[in-house]
């Protein structure tokens, strides 16, 4: 039973982390129908920011969050204004390949400046600590913190979008660009803002994640794929969708744990021999494919 509870707890925590990672992607997509292939690279930037700042200044990694957020915002806005803006004029193929180029650029700049080796945080308030709540549930302190912050971030963004004037302007732009423009909403600025917010949420997520996952220039891709699946499931553009979808994907990543539970509890020999852990990410790709075919709108999506 321990295994089961452990897997469930882990799935929930992981899910909330993934939801936060995907939040930025759904905001950007919701607003302007452009898929940011460099999303995972933004996360990587956040991770390196958190790591290097903590190591250079000796301050606790948790305090690097505001800095990471600021850098993320800046990065988002700069990417939009300096590049993405031009992409929007072109055909879809150009948009796709454009953000791909951005992904290559960021990834290899990181490779150039930081080297290909794994780096990780070894000291910090939460690093390496976990709570054993019994029944096989071991909660990693950092993941717990991320989960809490994730919930806060989601509430924050939801409030922003629905209760503030700015948020309403953003939503309006997303729903009907022309109409918003007639109403006097500066759509260009809204776009930049969306990239800024999207960028900062994901870099903050990165600065948090680096507390328990090591970073190297190549981590971006798998996170991009996970984020896409979360957003596809939850519905492109839907903030609450991203949260629930994140949880679902968190559980998908825990499939090896559930598999083990069945194999061991019911002593099923052939199950134990299947190398389920090698497929941890495979299920995510399969899930994406299946979701897109069955329900292209996802759970809560209003955009196709």
């Amino acid at each position, binding site marked *: 039973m321990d*295994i089961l509870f*452990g*897997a469930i707890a*882990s799935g929930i925590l992981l899910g909330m982390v993934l939801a936060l990672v995907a939040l930025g992607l759904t905001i950007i997509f919701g607003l302007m129908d452009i898929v940011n292939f460099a999303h995972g690279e933004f996360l990587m930037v956040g991770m390196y920011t958190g790591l290097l700042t903590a190591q250079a200044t000796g301050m606790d990694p948790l305090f690097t969050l505001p800095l990471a957020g600021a850098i993320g915002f800046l990065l988002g806005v700069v990417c939009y204004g300096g590049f993405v803006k031009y992409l929007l004029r072109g055909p879809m193929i150009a948009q796709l390949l454009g953000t791909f180029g951005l992904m290559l650029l960021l990834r290899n700049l990181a490779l150039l400046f930081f*080297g*290909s*080796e*794994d780096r*990780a945080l*070894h000291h910090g308030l939460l690093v*390496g600590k*976990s709570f*054993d709540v019994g029944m096989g549930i*071991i909660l*990693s302190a950092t993941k717990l913190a991320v989960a809490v912050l994730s919930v806060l971030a989601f509430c924050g963004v939801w409030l922003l979008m629905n209760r503030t004037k700015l948020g309403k302007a953003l939503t309006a732009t997303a729903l009907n660009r022309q109409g918003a423009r007639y109403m006097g909403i500066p759509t260009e600025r809204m776009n930049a803002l969306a990239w800024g917010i999207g960028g900062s949420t994901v870099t903050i997520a990165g600065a948090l994640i680096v507390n*328990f*996952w*090591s*970073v*190297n220039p*190549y*981590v971006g891709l*798998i996170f991009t794929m996970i984020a896409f699946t979360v957003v596809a499931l939850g519905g492109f553009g839907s903030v609450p969708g991203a949260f629930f979808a994140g949880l679902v994907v968190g559980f998908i*990543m*825990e499939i*090896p*744990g559930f598999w*083990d*539970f069945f194999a*061991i509890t019911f002593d099923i020999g052939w199950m*134990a021999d299947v*190398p*389920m*852990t*090698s497929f*941890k990410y495979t299920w995510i790709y399969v899930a994406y494919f299946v979701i897109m075919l069955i329900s292209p709108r996802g759970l809560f999506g209003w955009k196709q």
Partner: protein
Amino acid sequence: MKISSNCAQLLVGIFLLTALVLPSAVTAEEIKIGVLFPLTGGAASAGRELRSGAELALEIANNPMPDINMAMARNAGIKSMGGAKITLIFKDHEGNPTLGADLAKKLILDDKVHGLMGAYHSAVTKAVSVVAEQYGVPLINDSSTSPELTKQGYKWFWRTTPHDIYFTKDLFEFLKGLTEGKVKGVPAVPKKDIMSLASACEKTEWGAAVSELIEKFGKDYGFEVKKSILYAAKATDLSSEVRSLIAVKPDAMLFASYTSDAILMMKTLKDQKAAPKLLWGQNAGFEVPEFVSTLGDTTVGSLTRTVFIPKIALVKPVAAKVNAMYKAKTGNDLSGASARSFTGLQAWVHVLEKAGSLKPADIQKAANAIEIPGDELVVPWQGIKFATTGDDIGQNTLGMGLIGQYQKGADGKIDLEIVYPFNVATANMIYPFPKF
């Protein structure tokens, strides 16, 4: 002008034309050895050690150093070739076998090397050995331990380091000794208490081979291997794998990991509060300086197969001298990686000395005939002599492995103590593995 409008096609032409740049010519009295190591990527820190070890050996070979009791230290360069000096051409294969094979080909055809050394990753060495065999260029493998490599009967491949069959057998002899009370400082452990094993190995040539060996020897020695996980060394997250390991509640956890994954594995084990009675790593990542410098106290109690530990300097004067030089150069003690690359180049020097010429056939004959006595080596082997018959052709038959355990000394420093072979143990073994 119409011509400028086709500059795209012209550009193509120009690029293709620059491909006609020829490589530089060869100078006569220079011995060139191509060395392939992972200088970047997940095992880059091992790559650095490997490079430093080889460079130190080169320094000793090319310059007379009479106070070191090694044949290669006596002369400047290769005496039998009129004092010709050796040059090493380092190439970085990044852990990628196809790139490694490609680089080997370029070293042979463009740089015209007289021999090769490398490559740490067994998967890369495998690919490189095919190239060496095809072109008839001698390759000395200093650091890859997959048994496959010497089972092919290649005529241009020699391996100085013992391979994983030796090492894994050592592990099981050790476990057996544990149940028989032969381990220093530990009363006999009843077999049923250490019966179940689980392994997690990286999935390429090296780790996959180790995984199979663990299962085979496990069966032979009467242990139960409950789970054998193969994982990607480049993974950034190993929590599912570790959870799967812990789920079967093994008494002993066995690993075959490169640098970054060894560190990640230990961290994840600690995070999930794994509690095996015994934890062992098949060298590689478990032996690089980074392992201790990154993980600190977490490493205490873990065992690793090793080929060199600094304590050997206490019993081998050669090792002491070389280690001192190495430490002065890099700030670290010699490790399994650097000691073996050093020894690999040392073997090359002996082979060249005996061959007296750069003709491949002469080098091949010399390699099959050399015998280096154990007291000239920094590693605790009986010597170097390559097998020319049997099913392990090209393998050094006089090698030996050790099993060390990380322990905290009185000075607070964490170092490896020998626990196997039993008669050369330097300290009591810590058993069971201390809780994280």
